């Protein structure tokens, strides 16, 4: 097990390096590169050349790449082409927002997805099972952005229950310390921040959580049904163990591992996927920052955001995988390779 962790951790820098290189290549080396994009937005040639030189884009590609990697190693993500702000600082402001949203979405997904999956698996083939499977399928087929707008129409426009835009109302003054509202509210002793923060978080989190719950429902259902088929479950039943106990102690316990892995993987996907919800709800997270940067051709920002999201995704997947191996004794003694 320790060898496995060491091996995975040793491989991590390699993965991160390749990810960084891919991001660099995608944004600078392909046709329609930064220079051409920038060139089209500046009318006078002199101004354009000056800017390109300033950004180091006149250097040969290999030299740009070395500078990029050197900066990365020192934790420097460069500056925004447009505002001139430090990208690392911008990431520090927007990443916590996205993590908040991803965690909240995860909670929604788990409650709804697991609840539906277990209820359906308890009596496969029943009417309830059929109905829940239909609901899960529908949730999966909903376009996230559209579902978000539907929520805005229903809960903000018609019912007027929840705010539809932003992270906090503009009437509230918020001086960030960690940029996590909940932590800051506790640290600075401002519990009045929590209410409006949660109100703004609800619709985006429901949007992402519910649309991903369909997938979890199907996998949880399948996992439980698969486990219920195994011999030890039949033995337990024949011994006369009460059905409820068989379900919770025997079936669920063994199905839980697979389900947990799925949840971990989904969390990684949520980090990337909250991009859309952030745009719909004007939520100031890193995904929205990246899309805005792509649209305005602010490549330093897009590059930094993509890199951070990809790295986070890799890390979450690694932790999930290791946790899975640790939790399942059968995998602990697996020979290396």
């Amino acid at each position, binding site marked *: 097990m320790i060898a496995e962790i060491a091996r995975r951790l040793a491989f991590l820098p390699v993965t991160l390096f390749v990810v960084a290189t891919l991001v660099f290549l*995608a944004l600078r080396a392909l046709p329609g590169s930064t220079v051409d994009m920038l060139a089209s937005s500046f009318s006078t040639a002199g101004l354009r050349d000056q800017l390109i030189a300033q950004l180091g884009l006149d250097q040969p590609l290999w030299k740009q790449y070395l500078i990029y990697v050197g900066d990365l190693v020192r934790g420097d993500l460069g500056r925004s082409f447009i505002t001139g702000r430090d990208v690392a600082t911008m990431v520090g402001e927007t990443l916590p927002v996205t993590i908040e949203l991803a965690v909240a979405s995860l909670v929604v997904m788990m409650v709804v997805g697991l609840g539906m999956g277990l209820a359906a698996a308890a009596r496969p083939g*029943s009417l309830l099972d059929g109905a829940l499977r239909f609901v899960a399928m529908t949730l999966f087929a909903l*376009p996230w*952005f*559209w579902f978000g*707008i539907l929520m805005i129409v229903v809960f903000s426009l018609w019912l007027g229950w929840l705010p539809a835009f932003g992270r906090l109302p503009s009437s509230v003054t918020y001086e960030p310390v960690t940029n996590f509202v909940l932590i800051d509210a506790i640290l600075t002793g401002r519990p009045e921040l929590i209410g409006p923060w949660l109100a703004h978080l609800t619709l985006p989190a429901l949007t992402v959580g519910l649309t991903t719950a369909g997938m979890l429902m199907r996998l949880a259902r399948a996992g439980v049904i698969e486990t219920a088929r195994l011999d030890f*479950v039949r033995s337990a039943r024949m011994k006369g163990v009460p059905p409820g106990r068989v379900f919770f102690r025997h079936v669920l316990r063994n199905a839980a591992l697979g389900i947990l892995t799925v949840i971990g993987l989904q969390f990684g996907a949520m980090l990337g996927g909250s991009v*859309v919800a952030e745009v719909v709800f004007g939520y100031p997270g890193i995904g929205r920052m990246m899309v805005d940067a*792509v649209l305005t051709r602010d490549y330093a920002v897009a590059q930094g955001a993509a890199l951070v999201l990809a790295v986070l995704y890799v890390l979450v997947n690694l932790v999930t995988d290791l946790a899975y191996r640790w939790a399942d004794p059968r995998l602990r003694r697996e020979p290396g390779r």
Partner: protein
Amino acid sequence: MADSAGQKIAAGGVASLRLSAGVALAALPWLVAAIFVLAALLAPWLAPHDPVAGRAAPMQQMFSDGHLLGTDALGRDTLSRLLFGLRPMLVVSLGAVALALAAGGAYGLVSGTAGGRTDWAMMRAVDILMSFPLILAAILVLAALGPSLFNVTLAVAVSQLPIFARLARALAAGEAARDYVLAARAAGFSELHVMLREVAPNIARPLLVQATSVVALAALTAAALSYLGLGVRPPAPDLGYMVKEGQELLFIAPEQALLPGLLIAVFALAVSFCGDQLADVERRGGGA
């Protein structure tokens, strides 16, 4: 409660449901999908107005004269735009899946049949592609290439490539270990022959089933990219982008944002059910 679970699974939940509800229910998703394709093909004849030409006139509400579903802020007929907007959705989702199936399938076929170090190296490359969340990979491709119908197709295909590469690899590796492949190799057939004439025909079916079940995902990804402004260039009608344009009018005419999204959802739901049915058949029939 749970003690009858085993028998009920054996009976097959889906199968019993389908038998009782009849063939009509099973045919419904195929019918819906067919209607979408037909409507897209016949859009020029079905659409009452030009989808792109606007009029300097006040916005029309739903059910107004000559505009069944009203007009958008630029005076363009919403019904016509919806009909023409089906086209990019179908072209991108079907095109992307076909591309991903061809490229990923070929990649996995080579990797799985070859085995050994080649296989290992090829699969690590796929792992790296998987280290990006799908939509992020698609956004990066579009950021690099610029938005256009073809580039969206390419971006969605790239995001789905790993699915097919992995499945094809697993299937091919399984086939490659079988006696008939050994026999073909022993008979002196080239590796290319073994791949294309022996292994490929035997892994094609599950790959095609998988392709059907990811069409919905492709349509949703493409729609999301359009919504983000990375898809088809305006003024060309596109369902995802129409939702974005409609969002500006949410307070006056919410249907302008809700209708195009509803079409995407119905299409995605229909093809999901189609894919599910095929997967069920494959699971029961092709159990070998």
